[in-house]
């Protein structure tokens, strides 16, 4: 799941300062689950913006709408009429959703209302943690299903670093040492011999180093 968090209300007011009629557009997928940009958050942010605008004597009229998925043209279509009758869009989707809306409606200013922060999971109620860096070349099979790229503060492929205290990371003491977790997990599944292998430097070409990535599946193209 993509995890995002709300920008501050003063920041949003500043972003929208040139517009009087704005559509606050939510997304019903990842950002709904991470409680940042779903229907409920659209209502909260729109209310907060209306109150803040009135306190500051800023003329701002907001319309609220949430579609199933902002990164999918099929669902974006459902927002077309609402987008047409407003001067701008404040998207509460992730970075992909914001860009999908902006590409589809080339003449309409589209702004991000959220900061997209990471790919992660709901750890427990109200707590999300990062699990994947989307590096494009997964190494989870080598490390017992625990990603050292994402979860080790030093991104070590041949850990541990030696600085951990008990099972805690030396960089942030409230985080678990990924390499402690990897060791424990491999021990539990009887694969400790995997750690004897020296892992060569990772090929980062599949990551962000060569510009944005594109995936083509010829078997699905028409």
């Amino acid at each position, binding site marked *: 799941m993509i995890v995002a968090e709300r920008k501050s*209300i*003063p920041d949003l007011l500043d972003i929208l300062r040139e517009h009087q009629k704005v559509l606050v557009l939510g997304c019903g997928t990842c950002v709904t689950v991470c409680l940042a940009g779903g229907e409920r958050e659209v209502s*909260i942010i729109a209310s907060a913006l209306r*109150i803040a605008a*009135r*306190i500051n004597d800023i003329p701002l009229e907001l319309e609220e709408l949430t579609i199933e998925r902002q990164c999918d043209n099929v669902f974006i279509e459902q927002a077309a009429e609402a987008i047409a009758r407003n001067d701008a869009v404040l998207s509460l989707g992730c970075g992909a959703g914001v860009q999908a809306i902006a590409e589809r409606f080339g003449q309409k200013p589209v702004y991000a209302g959220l900061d997209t922060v990471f790919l992660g999971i709901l750890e427990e109620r109200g707590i999300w943690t990062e699990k994947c860096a989307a590096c494009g070349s997964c190494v989870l099979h080598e490390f017992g299903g625990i990603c050292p790229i994402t979860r080790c503060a030093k991104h070590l492929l041949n850990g541990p670093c030696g600085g951990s205290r008990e099972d805690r990371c030396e960089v942030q003491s409230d985080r678990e040492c990924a390499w402690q977790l990897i060791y424990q997990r491999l021990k539990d599944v009887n694969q400790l011999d995997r750690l004897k292998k020296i892992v060569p430097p990772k090929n980062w070409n599949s990551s962000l180093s060569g510009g944005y990535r594109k995936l083509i599946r010829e078997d699905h193209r028409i």
Partner: protein
Amino acid sequence: MTADKFEPKILAFCCHYCAYASADLLGSMRIQYPPNVRIIRTPCTGRLEVNFFLKALEKGADGVLVAGCLEGGCHFVDGNLFAKRRVDYIRSLMVEIGMEADRLRMVNVSASMARPLSEHIVNMVETISRLGPSPLRRGSELTQAEKST
């Protein structure tokens, strides 16, 4: 209400199992409380969504009082504790917005705490009277009587 004084409009979300029963008891005991509050009965304060508070403020309430069960005494075990966190979140959001956080307050009473409830209401009215009308009602939306204060 007098004609020449700002009279706060306060919305009170009262839990059915405690504060609402307590307000009822206030009536039975013939104890008066300021008529500034408009009570909305809720099945539990845990039912209250955070946008309920913002909507109340957006629609012109000068203050919002959330009255739930005593901590540890919720009919639904921990609904009032959820409400407490939501109230705290909106109070911090109100500061971000530029509105006084004291306009939203949560109190805890049991069904038999009629007098403490009336005191909470009196305190809330005093707080809002001190803060003045909601910034959303200042100016054109104030009644003539309120403007004269």
